[in-house]
């Protein structure tokens, strides 16, 4: 699917058949001074011009370090935040600047799974009320009544339907995340944006929830945008993966291609930083350290991002051009776009057309 879309993506048009496509998506948060005479002194450029699209039944993974704008992107996609610029097309409609009332019908189609299963469920409501809330809010009367619909949802996510009248505190973290997922599914959305759906869970529970998300996708034909910082989780669940750095996409590609041959130095560095559960010993039995690319320092502030290529301050390959000219997100090989002047893992012949 992604390969056939990519030709249209590069020409900047919304690709036919994409469920969601985003061009030049931007979100700047103003920074103001003064109490009476408020004036803007700057802007946090949280998301600064994203282009990507998601095909139906596809999972797009969005990875990056904290502060790279992945959560803001998720909130823009669900229109919990108003974009500063750019365009978002969902299912053939422009949803970029819809007002609250106009968004209402759309909320059925786009839903969100939140990170923290503890703070995203109201402790005073029963599971039945929580999972049934979308019906109430959208004035939907499910067939057979709300109670039955909720119990079916609970069963769908692997919870006991008898637990309808229990409260969130009676459940473990993994079960709570399932309650959140059941609520998300109530209105049969087309697109689900999952912001760090498993990062608050234990490894064994994490695997259960990841498997559940996969099953639900197959069963209900869902489309996911999964936001996560854990590269191995993203690899496991995504069909395509987008890597963000300081509000920009630096690389987007098919999962297997990205993980086998990452092109952007930042992606390469991120992957080499992941600790591998395989101890390494030298010949004399001493514990040995894995060779990895060490990025120094922290991510620069999005208030004042570095000019041109935003990664040049931490990049070991940076040259003059990286400081003066911003690299475009160019398609190096079909379906694999990279924003770098000197991509890795590229033979000379391949690099030529990218210029």
């Amino acid at each position, binding site marked *: 699917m992604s390969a056939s879309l990519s030709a249209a993506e590069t020409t900047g048009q919304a690709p036919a058949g994409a469920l969601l496509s985003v061009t030049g998506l931007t979100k700047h948060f103003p920074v103001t001074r003064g109490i009476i005479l408020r004036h803007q002194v700057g802007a946090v450029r949280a998301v600064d011009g994203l282009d990507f699209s998601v095909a139906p039944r596809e999972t797009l993974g969005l990875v990056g370090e904290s502060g790279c704008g992945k959560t803001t992107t998720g909130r823009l996609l669900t229109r919990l935040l108003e974009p500063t610029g750019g365009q978002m097309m969902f299912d053939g409609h422009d949803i970029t600047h819809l007002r609250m009332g106009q968004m209402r019908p759309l909320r059925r189609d786009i839903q969100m799974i939140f990170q923290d299963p503890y703070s995203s469920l109201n402790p005073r409501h029963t599971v039945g009320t929580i999972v049934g809330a979308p019906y109430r809010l959208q004035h939907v009367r499910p067939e057979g009544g709300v109670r039955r619909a909720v119990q079916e949802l609970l069963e769908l996510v692997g919870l006991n339907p008898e637990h309808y009248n229990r409260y969130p505190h009676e459940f473990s973290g993994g079960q709570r995340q399932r309650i959140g997922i059941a609520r998300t599914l109530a209105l049969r959305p087309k697109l689900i944006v999952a912001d760090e759906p498993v990062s608050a869970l234990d490894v064994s529970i994490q695997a259960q929830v990841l498997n559940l998300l996969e099953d639900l996708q197959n069963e209900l034909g869902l489309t996911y945008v999964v936001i996560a910082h854990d590269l191995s989780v993203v690899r*496991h669940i995504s069909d395509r993966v987008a890597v963000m750095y300081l509000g920009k996409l630096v690389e987007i590609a098919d*999962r297997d291609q990205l993980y086998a041959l990452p092109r952007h130095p930042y992606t390469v*560095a991120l*992957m080499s930083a992941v*600790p591998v*559960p*395989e*101890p390494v010993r030298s010949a004399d039995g001493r514990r040995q350290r894995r060779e990895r690319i060490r*990025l120094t320092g922290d991510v620069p502030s999005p208030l004042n991002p570095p000019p041109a290529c935003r990664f040049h301050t931490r990049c070991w390959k940076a040259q003059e051009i990286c400081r003066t000219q911003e690299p475009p997100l160019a398609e190096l090989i079909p379906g694999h776009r990279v924003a770098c002047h000197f991509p890795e893992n590229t033979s000379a012949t391949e690099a030529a057309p990218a210029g």
Partner: protein
Amino acid sequence: MAGALLEVRDLRIHFPTDDGLVKAVDGLTFTLDRGHTLGIVGESGSGKSVTSLGILGLHHGGSARISGQILLDGENLVAADPGRVRELRGSKMAMIFQDPLSAMHPYYTVGQQISEAYLIHNKVGKKVARKHSIDLLNRVGIPQASSRVDDYPHQFSGGMRQRAMIAMALSCDPELLIADEPTTALDVTVQAQILDLISDLQEEYGSAVIIITHDLGVVAELSDDILVMYAGRSAEYGTAEDLFGRPGHPYAWGLLGSMPRLDAARTERLLPIKGTPPSLINVPSGCPFHPRCGYAELTGGKSITEVPELREVAPGHLVACHLTAEQQRTIWTEQIKVKLGGREEG
């Protein structure tokens, strides 16, 4: 065990609550040699953090009931006077906490917080202590340490705060350093920097390190030996090679199967452990893992009735499971390892 710095014998830490007795740690035994690193892994609620706080004597004053022995250099900390434990804490043993933002005091400068323990344990003046703090900040890789020493914690980034926490723990050259989830709150690139720093410092200071985490990757990078905890008991104990190369406990298999990994071919399905961690008030009878274990019936009901002892399946490799060593080996190589995907031998 001449080289042992820390010996924990049959440690039990119980908390009486209105709902019943919470057996957070229930008969834990392990040893840690000087200069070695022990990784403690387990899910939340398995007793990892309670153990580390117990070693540091931080349960005193609470409702905890502690029994067993914690021998630091032969001195039993469980029976020792709280004042004596206080003397040792900070000087001979120190801790790096998980969340540096909540572990540091927002009203004091980073320098004041680093020098606090140094001033208490050494007869020195403030000037000397300040200089010592600057040295430590330099040592943990904070740029312009001489001016950053007067900054407040909020002026540091997450990675720098964790470095400052490490500086604080190192202020009196502790022989035992306990790091409780030292990198959980950090991004991968910063995590890599901190892991490198911990291992560099360990080589330099020769301290023994206990690293507590739920991330098997982190454990594999740092540890010589690994202790897998489940429901307050040890499920398996062995070298890092034992644990990752030939794990014997079904719980360890479950942990390895749950984890998507970057170094192996992508598997279609993860193999999660079914169910949820047990309540520590009503720990299941027999082997606490039996309700979630896929191999319990192979033991002929023994798992349900009898608590498995830690048994040596190979020299230095202990497993608390009723399956025979032979069964463990066969199931691991024939059923689990193949499903974990084709990772290359190395």
